[in-house]
């Protein structure tokens, strides 16, 4: 049962993600955004299968419910028309390539090093229990957590700076 | 003009006075309507509104005191009607005679589409013969669209007699008074 559901959700996630970035039927940015929402929701389904209810709920709450609404808001406010197929500069291709390789490497390494099944159990215990999740974040993973927070803070300050009309 | 707004006090900025005031007003009306039976609603089909004098409802054709059709098919109203609700078929070559002595023409057919009419009163305003008047009917109903196109007969029947001036009769008398301008009777 759970296996079947896993394959269904995984397939849906991949399908929606594909339709989000390379939809052959429509190049409408709103459609892409909606498929991204569906991707998020199917991913939340995967979290549920891992018994990580908290993560699933947060995934929907934050990504599908808030971040994507902001995306839509911006798309609609700026009135972005059909995205035309444009040429990419060499620099962006190179940058994209590097990040893909980096991500792929990390993914490959993690899968190789984790013994099958064990990783899942770890999440299962931590994810379902909010308190345990909080403890893990604030003890074991404190440094990455803080770095991410600082990153967000920097982004926020940057936005405020940019959106101020005249810099004195 | 710039209106200076007084700064709100802290108490006012808490929205509480507004809330309480709103509650008081709505509550008073609620109680008055429910328990006092003070509703102002008119139960329409049973109770009818008394139309005041000079109300501009649906436009109808009128007859003069002698019972003759006043309209002379000049088509001014057709021309002026903003939503093009009026359709007039002039007598043309047909031997249709006006029922009045001193009118040349009378419309062969005169239709007002009451679904289009906006009760603007332009037709009444423009009519040189005072033949069309906005009258008291304000609620016209029908089950088909065709039914809502009123023809000449219906308009005349609904319009009745208008006890206003009989323009041409008056002119005739005036003319008769002026010896210099002989008119046939």
């Amino acid at each position: 049962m759970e296996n079947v559901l896993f394959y269904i959700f995984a397939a849906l996630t991949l399908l929606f993600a594909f339709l989000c970035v390379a939809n052959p039927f429509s190049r409408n940015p709103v459609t892409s955004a909606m498929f991204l929402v569906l991707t998020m929701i199917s991913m939340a389904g995967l979290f549920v299968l891992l018994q990580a209810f908290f993560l699933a709920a947060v995934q929907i709450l934050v990504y599908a419910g808030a971040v994507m609404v902001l995306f839509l808001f911006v798309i609609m406010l700026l009135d972005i028309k059909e995205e035309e197929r444009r040429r990419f500069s060499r620099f962006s291709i190179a940058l994209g390539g590097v990040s893909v390789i980096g991500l792929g490497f990390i993914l490959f390494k993690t899968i190789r090093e984790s013994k099958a099944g064990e990783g899942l159990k770890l999440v299962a215990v931590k994810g379902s229990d909010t308190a345990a999740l909080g403890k893990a974040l604030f003890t074991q993973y404190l440094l990455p957590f803080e770095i991410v927070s600082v990153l967000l803070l920097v982004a926020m300050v940057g936005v405020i700076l940019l959106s101020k009309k005249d810099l004195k | 003009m710039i209106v200076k707004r007084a700064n709100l006090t802290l108490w006012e900025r808490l929205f509480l006075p507004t809330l309480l005031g709103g509650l008081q007003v709505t509550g008073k009306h609620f109680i008055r309507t429910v328990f006092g039976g003070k509703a102002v609603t008119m139960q329409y089909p049973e109770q009818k509104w008394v139309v005041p004098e000079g109300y501009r409802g649906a436009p109808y054709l009128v007859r003069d005191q002698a019972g003759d059709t006043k309209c002379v098919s000049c088509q001014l109203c057709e021309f002026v009607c903003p939503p093009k609700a009026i359709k007039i078929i002039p007598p043309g070559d047909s031997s249709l005679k006006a029922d009045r002595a001193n009118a040349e023409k009378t419309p062969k057919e005169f239709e007002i589409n009451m679904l289009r009419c906006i009760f603007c009163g332009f037709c009444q305003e423009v009519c040189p013969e005072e033949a069309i008047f906005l009258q008291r009917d304000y609620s016209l109903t029908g089950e088909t669209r065709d039914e809502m196109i009123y023809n000449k007969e219906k308009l005349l029947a609904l319009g009745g007699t208008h006890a206003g001036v009989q323009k041409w009769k008056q002119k005739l008398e005036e003319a008769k008074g002026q010896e210099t301008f002989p008119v046939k009777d």
Partner: protein
Amino acid sequence: MEAIKQFFSGLSWEQEFVIFTTLKVCIVLFGAVLPIVAYAVLVERKVSAWIQDRVGPNRATPFFVKYLPVVGPILVRLGIFHPLADGLKSFLKEDFTPAHVRKVYFWIAPAIAVVPAMLALAVIPFGSKLGDQKMVIADLNVGILFTFGIISLGVYGLVLAGYASNSKFSFLGGIRSSAQMISYEIAMGMSVIPIFMLVGDLNLSKVIAYQADGAWLVFKQPIAFVIFLVAAFAETNRLPFDLPEAETELVGGYHTEYSSMKFALFFIGEYTAMIAASAMMVVLFFGGWTLPFAGLNESATTFAMGLAHIGIFVSKMLFLMVVFIWVRWMLPRFRYDQLMDLGWRRFVPLALVNIVLTAVVLWALHPK
């Protein structure tokens, strides 16, 4: 009776779960939510009429009324049959799709507006127990987060409707709703954090149990309640925050171009969201299905008690819905900048202060 008992005792745990959950979903949806929606519309019309010195709907007279001697005419005057007529009417109306809309989104937007509101009801415990069945459709241990997550999806219905309609009024309505919902979601989410700091659990049944033991949370957390209440008005697009619809400026806002059953779906969505918001408030602040006397604080042991608990819950909820309705006819609409100002500059900081305050008090009471 014996046969039925036999049948149920022969079921495995999973089968029983599936059967009872389906049963609960059907009963809650068709037996409670849709009728409440229909009659909330009636109450809305009647209350507005009474507040405005009118009589309100009092005409619909089905054929069987003439067999009811005294009650019949009274029911007709109260407009009891109007929701039936309204429902029928919305099915019979012409379903008109304007020529310039984006068809796909135009079709799915009403559905997206309804579904989340209904899903959100799934985690709400609307009673203690009937037999050995817990009166909640899904007793999740992250109940509140689930509700917030699902409710936050409801905004897509409105945004897409505004986008799909391809008209300026709808578009402005859609834009407004997206900004408004996001802003108030934050205030709403932060307002309930102190509650879970007190209760120590995200499960809604635990929240009720906590309140059954002590005072209702509305007394312990009045600030949280006020923020939640106001945010609920904004989230459900009710006056004074109905800027996405704003009849007087945007015609009908996001549903300007909709007609017939599609329009009715938006309506159902709005009122279901209202039900969900009221139910959430009952659970979080008004002790859910409990009453602090006559032993009604305990989980039900008999069938009658179970029914009484459901009755208590529903009456609390209906009371809050009347508050929703009354406020609509009491206050004028806020301006958009006032709305944003209230959300971001007043309620978010207030909610943060409330969290810190609660933490300090908790720490002072139970230092570890």
